[in-house]
């Protein structure tokens, strides 16, 4: 590897890392803003214009709080918990392709931390490591509620990882590659996977919510039942790291959803943009600008999904634990296996949109069942 390539790559990685942190930081602000707006309020608006310095104020507050370690807690594991959580959260953004490639003289450098041909497997591995952060933290707190929260987190993540994995097998079958970049490149233009895999998308999205411990699946930190869940005993920046890890996870899973199902940096008319830009500004500058446009489009999609995460959080109440487990094991796993089988048939007979058959059948079944359901008897008004 040449020196210039190394330098460009290094700068790229630092920038991506910084952007990840920045977006996670402003997600905390955006979350409170969205919560406020949905509840007919303004949200934070005191620190700077529109509350734009609120994350800094929050971080300052977090740092100055007492960093408390319970006397009976396992000290090293107690510290290791949040470190693991944030480490795994930050690691997974390495393989996401944020743009096509940067052209420097005749070097073509992909806008991506590392390009590995098993990218999606790497993401899965790191995401399943993430649960250790919660597990270790909850166990080391030496508190029954923390432990219960940690156990819930672990069992929830394990349950939903199966649905998560099975739902993208259909995508992998269609693409024939585990590399996220290859998957994104196959969705060139407007051939997004969403149109071939609607059911897989819904399952993947829901499982992503569960993996991020976001509402409606935030049972590990269910205040009404578990005080604070796995982070009951945490304070100061250790708690901050747990909360921050959640927002980084949200960013990463939004990026993965956008890459797998919404075409990543692809957008309709991208070839035209590339040709015009390279034609008018020269090969290198035009190429880099076209890449930049793609990256901006990707970030637009990511922001939409982050917004969607928040939107759902302030709409839905929490699931009950048995509902959560029923949904994971009895609905998503059979459905995603069915999706894999139907997609397989589709590939065999060259029908691209085979997965829509399941959706159509489900919609018809739902309509028939609600039509056949006994109507609630109209209660006559008593006077």
């Amino acid at each position, binding site marked *: 590897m040449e020196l210039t390539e190394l330098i460009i790559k290094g700068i790229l990685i630092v920038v991506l890392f910084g952007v990840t942190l920045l977006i996670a930081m402003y997600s905390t602000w955006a979350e409170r803003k969205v919560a406020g707006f949905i509840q007919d309020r303004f949200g934070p*608006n005191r620190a700077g214009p529109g509350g734009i310095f609120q994350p800094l104020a929050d971080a300052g507050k977090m740092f100055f709080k007492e960093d408390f370690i319970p006397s009976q807690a396992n000290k090293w594991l107690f510290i290791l918990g949040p470190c693991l959580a944030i480490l795994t959260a930050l690691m997974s953004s390495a393989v996401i392709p944020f743009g096509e490639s940067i052209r420097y003289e005749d070097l073509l450098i992909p806008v991506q931390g590392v390009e590995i041909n098993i990218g999606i497997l790497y993401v899965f591995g790191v995401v399943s490591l993430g649960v250790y952060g919660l597990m270790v933290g909850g166990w080391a707190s030496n508190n029954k509620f923390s432990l219960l929260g940690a156990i819930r987190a672990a069992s929830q993540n394990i349950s939903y990882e199966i649905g998560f994995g099975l739902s993208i097998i259909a995508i992998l079958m269609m693409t024939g590659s585990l590399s996220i970049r290859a998957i994104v490149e196959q969705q060139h233009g407007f051939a997004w996977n969403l149109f071939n895999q609607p059911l897989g998308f819904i399952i993947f999205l829901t499982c992503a919510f569960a993996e991020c411990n976001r509402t409606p699946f935030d049972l590990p930190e269910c205040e009404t039942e578990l005080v604070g869940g796995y982070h009951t005993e945490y304070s100061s920046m250790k708690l901050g790291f747990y909360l921050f890890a959640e927002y980084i996870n949200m960013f990463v899973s939004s990026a993965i959803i956008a890459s797998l199902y919404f075409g990543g940096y692809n957008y309709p008319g991208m070839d035209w943009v590339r040709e015009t830009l390279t034609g008018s500004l020269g090969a290198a500058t035009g190429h880099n600008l076209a890449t930049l446009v793609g990256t901006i489009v990707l970030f637009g999609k990511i922001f939409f999904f982050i917004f969607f995460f928040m939107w759902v959080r302030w709409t839905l109440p929490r699931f009950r634990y048995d509902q959560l487990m029923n949904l994971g094991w009895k609905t998503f796993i059979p459905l995603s296996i069915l999706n894999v089988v139907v997609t397989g048939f589709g590939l065999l007979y060259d029908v691209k949109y085979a997965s829509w058959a399941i959706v159509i059948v489900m919609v018809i079944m739902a309509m028939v069942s609600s039509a056949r359901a006994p109507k609630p008897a109209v209660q006559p008004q008593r006077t």
Partner: protein
Amino acid sequence: MQLTNRSKEVSNKEMTMAEKMYLPAIVQGLAITIKHFFAKKVTIPYPEVKRYLGPVFRGHHILKRDEEGRERCTACGLCAVACPAEAISMVAAERKKGEENLYREEKYAAVYEINMLRCIFCGLCEEACPKQAVYLRHDKLVPIFTERDQVVYGKEELVEKMSDRYIRTNPDAQATPTEPSFSRSVS
């Protein structure tokens, strides 16, 4: 007895397929919340935007002067008696020769103090005053204090400035037997 028409009988019936899929209900919920996202906010961001308080709002106290600029207060102490929070205290003094342009009556308040920590802004002092001297103004709030020694307001804060006279504009208010305060001449 039925209290409302909106009550629904709770049933334990089996959910239909559409209900079990959750998605229609979720989409419905998302539509409701996004409507609220773009709705007009009810919050009034207070220090920047102040809402209209109305002509009968009871704010900062003022000791009125009459048309010739003489203090109206005669230190009768009725306001202090009427005050349920015992916030008002005063020291009376006799008007000397040559002070007729300062004080309207022969007796006046040398010291007139209101403890703003005790005051509950009920307006009973205003009601009690036979000389139309003390008022709670509708256009000004007692400012925020941060120290205990800022709490007691003396005559220099309370007595009306001739350069900045307080006029309660209330064209809609009609004098009624139960609201005699509206009929008082304030100028």
